């Protein structure tokens, strides 16, 4: 029992200073990246000014996917080695990933509207992101539906890992179908390669998202650990 909380103690002291540092980094990167992306980067020769949504949309897509992979890894670590922090990390990352996925979907819709003339298009990659969003919701719903802490963690770990295996299958099936039925995606501004002048703001935004994820993840984890301590104390008091 105490061994399980020795690591979290070290984590708490580490995250106590790391969280605000990451938050500050995120703030700076967004302060630099957003104006750069939205005002000072070149417009696309095909899409004009609307391409600027890409700088919000694309990093959100990358990280929505990467966060789920992170959750999968954390779930595996928890399932095999029962490391309590790994479960806390997985559960704390889920809402952040879900928000990134949702942001990707909304910005995707906004991006496509002027080009498609409609507010939604069943583009292969966007549809894949929609499924990923549902996967996030399912994971969060399962975790909160199971009251027993440890059982929720272990069952959630199974769901996350199985979902991770399923993700490539879903992506393949959706992209396969859309290439049969639709022309290539619009989500590649300037043709099949990204112009180097777009790389600067894009990567800045990408790192901004990463720093934001880090700060939010640590905040969520700290809150979860504190909550567990309170509940543990309450249960011991009642016993």
């Amino acid at each position, binding site marked *: *029992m105490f061994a399980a909380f020795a690591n979290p103690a070290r984590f708490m002291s580490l995250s106590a200073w790391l969280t605000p540092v990451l938050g500050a980094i995120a703030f700076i990167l967004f302060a630099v990246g957003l104006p750069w992306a939205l005002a000072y980067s070149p417009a696309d020769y095909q899409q004009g000014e609307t391409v600027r949504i890409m700088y919000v949309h694309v990093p959100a897509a990358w990280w929505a996917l990467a966060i789920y992979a992170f959750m999968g890894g954390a779930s595996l670590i928890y399932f095999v080695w029962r490391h309590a922090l790994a479960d806390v990390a997985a559960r704390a990352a889920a809402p952040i990933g879900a928000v990134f996925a949702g942001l990707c979907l909304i910005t995707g819709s906004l991006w496509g509207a002027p080009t498609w003339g409609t507010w939604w298009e069943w583009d292969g990659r966007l549809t894949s992101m929609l499924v990923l969003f549902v996967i996030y919701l399912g994971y969060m719903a399962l975790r909160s539906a199971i009251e*027993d*802490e*440890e059982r929720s963690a272990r069952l959630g770990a199974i769901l996350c890992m199985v979902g991770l295996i399923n993700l490539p299958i879903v992506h393949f099936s959706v992209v396969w179908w859309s290439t049969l039925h639709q022309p290539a995606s619009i989500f590649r501004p300037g043709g099949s390669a990204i112009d180097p002048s777009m790389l600067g703001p894009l990567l800045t935004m990408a790192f901004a998202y990463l720093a934001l994820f880090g700060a939010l993840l640590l905040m969520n984890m700290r809150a979860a650990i504190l909550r567990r301590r309170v*509940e*543990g104390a309450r*249960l*011991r008091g009642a*016993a």
Partner: protein
Amino acid sequence: MAEGDNIALRADKLAIRRGARELFHDLSFVVRAGEYVEVRGANGAGKTSLLRALAGFLKPSAGQIHFDAAEEPALALHYLGHLNGLKGSASVSAHLRYWSGLFGVSSSLEQSAARLGLMALRDLPARVLSQGQQRRLALARLLIAPRPIWLLDEPAASLDGAGRTLIGELVDSHRQRGGLAIAAVHEPLGPTAHASVILA
């Protein structure tokens, strides 16, 4: 199959935790062939959790459980919990046939049914049986598939005096064949217990 011969079950410094609460720790005992051990304790002391840990359903938070048995533990034991494991719409005989298939044996089902007074109820669906009859149907598992280790959680619950006597006899003949039994009880079951494990 040959029951007994050097069967033993050993618990070594067992600790079991449910949620955030530790039920007990540092529990050690040995049960050998032919022995019957009672587990006693107040409600919530951990009797059921101990039996489920011995059955392999839950992992103890500390300590080890050793089985000196010919087969792997899951094939060497029977678990009779609070729940009977019955399906309301299935008949008594359907249950007997299912268990005989599930445990991979082909013994005489009539014999087991008769021993437990179930012959007249053979074709009835389980849901119309009384609590006591349902308990006796659950006990049929023990006779259908001979396994050396019996883990019984309040086996006499919902049974009348005759039923309790019956269980006592079943445990006694099981011991004579070389098996061992561990039962969580509130009152003595019948057979003289070789030892008692008391959970605080």
